[in-house]
């Protein structure tokens, strides 16, 4: 199946999940749909290697977990029944990614700024054990306000962890305003470079560009890599795109119908 098809399926699953459970963060999940599709259906070495050698993926922006669960369902790691229990009384999948769901989630996240330190620790353990797998961490742009992100960035640069890859979902919107106005991240690529990382900026909805960037890491030997993925919050559903309220709202039945129609 083509990546485009996978990404569309991930988006359709996200719409179904959030409307069924009346949960929030649909905009954040749609923002990373292409990134997780490119990871799970191209970049991550998951099934062709032994379990211990699998590439790890940490969703640091844990509130966008509908996209992760959707990708894991698309990859056959989560059943439709489990997916139907997302954010629902008695279900197994809470509104922030959790290790205990036992479905291929690599770390419990949801409090921002935790994922990159954890990913750096996993990358360090791979080096200690002389294992060849890579660790990918997906961060939100608003999440980059957290000091712990930069603690980890400094550590990974200093430790020359070139088996670590960060992806920043740069959709320019955070919980209560535009990123540029709340805490401007610019110059973002230069910040990472100053911390010892090799950076590349791409269109985070261009699957070819994502595929090519994710499959050419490390960008530089001896440096961790960061992909700054320029994205649109709510991408793929016209009336959700770039609108902050879709950080909170859940589509009603009519909005669900219109969204799924657009994602045909």
């Amino acid at each position: 199946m083509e990546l485009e098809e996978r990404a569309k399926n991930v988006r359709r699953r996200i719409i179904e999940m959030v409307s069924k459970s009346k949960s929030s963060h649909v905009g954040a999940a749609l923002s990373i749909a292409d990134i997780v599709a490119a990871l799970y259906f191209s970049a991550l070495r998951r099934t062709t290697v032994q379990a211990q050698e699998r590439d790890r993926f940490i969703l640091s922006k844990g509130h966008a977990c509908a996209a992760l669960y959707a990708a894991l369902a698309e990859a056959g790691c989560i059943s439709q029944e489990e997916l139907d229990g997302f954010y629902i009384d008695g279900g197994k999948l809470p509104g922030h990614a959790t290790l205990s769901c036992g479905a291929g989630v690599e770390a419990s996240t949801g409090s921002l700024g935790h994922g990159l330190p954890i990913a750096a620790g996993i990358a360090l353990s791979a080096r200690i054990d002389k294992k060849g797998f890579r660790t990918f961490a997906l961060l939100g742009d608003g999440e980059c306000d957290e000091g712990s992100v930069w603690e980890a960035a400094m550590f990974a640069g200093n430790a020359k962890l070139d088996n670590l890859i960060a992806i920043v979902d740069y959709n320019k919107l955070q919980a209560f305003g535009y990123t540029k106005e709340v805490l401007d991240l610019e110059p973002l690529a230069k910040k990472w470079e100053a911390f010892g990382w090799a950076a590349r900026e791409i269109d985070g909805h261009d699957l070819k560009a994502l595929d090519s960037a994710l499959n050419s890491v490390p960008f530089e030997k001896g440096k961790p890599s960061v992909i700054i993925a320029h994205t649109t919050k709510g991408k793929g559903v016209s009336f959700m795109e770039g609108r902050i309220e879709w950080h909170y709202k859940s589509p009603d039945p009519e909005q669900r119908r219109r969204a799924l129609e657009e994602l045909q």
Partner: protein
Amino acid sequence: MRRAFVDALLDIAKEDERVVVITPDMGFSVFERFREAFPERIYNTGIAEQNSVGIASGLALNGKVVFVYSIVPFVTMRPFEQVRIDACYQNLPIKLVGSGGGLTYGPLGPTHHSIEDIALMRALPNMSVLCPGDPIESVLCTKEAHRIPGPAYIRLGKGSGEPTIHESTPDFSIGRGIVLKEGKDANIISTGNMLENATLASGLLEKEGIGCGVVSMPSVKPLDLELVSSLSRKAPLFSLEEHSMIGGLGSAVAEFLSESGEHSSFLRIALPDRFCHEVGSQQYLRNLYGLSPEGIAKRVISRIK
């Protein structure tokens, strides 16, 4: 206690190659021998405690058993949320080791005192809380923390200079107290670095004709409920700790006793709910706050007479 901890850790690391040490830039004159023996298994992650616990969690997710070492506030409070989520929620083998329990760093002031750490660590699901009372208990607690699968917190006292209270290595496992002597008139349950003063207070009381027992309770969580229950039915019971009144050993014992039916009187001997603005050594501050042997004996006498 710190020296005893490092000796124990070296022994453990020789046997278990999963053991890794993470330190946010602490450990001068502590970890040199470890670094010499296992250069690939100790990392100074810089003065960045949140990241340090995050790194430890990543290592633990991939099979390592990680000891994270710093001064108490910087291994419990500064990275509290990483401890809560990364270590405890994920239930990982991360062993936090804090040096300078209670008022150890007296004249450095309240930034370096640790009088709320037991309360904070005790409240976390999956976390075990171990406060050794002397160098022998320090070794025992380190081994127990390593033996159990989940997260643990070990609260050490000074680097060295604390007396060895136990004459020989007592039987100890997590969740079990250590009875040094039973008293007919009163019993003190002490945790952490108050053990010496508990025994000295017991000696002073002896001279007054009061038989006061001493029980060491390094395992604050899980607590030895059976032992607390049996002691509470025999004679007035006292808890003793260099920690705030709120949330430490005294609270743990009170929570249990208040729901456990009949028991004799119980009194917490601990620090008041305030920052310590007076400047002085551990000894000086202990005298000021009634945690000297004399102060403790006085509290016992006024309670039981």
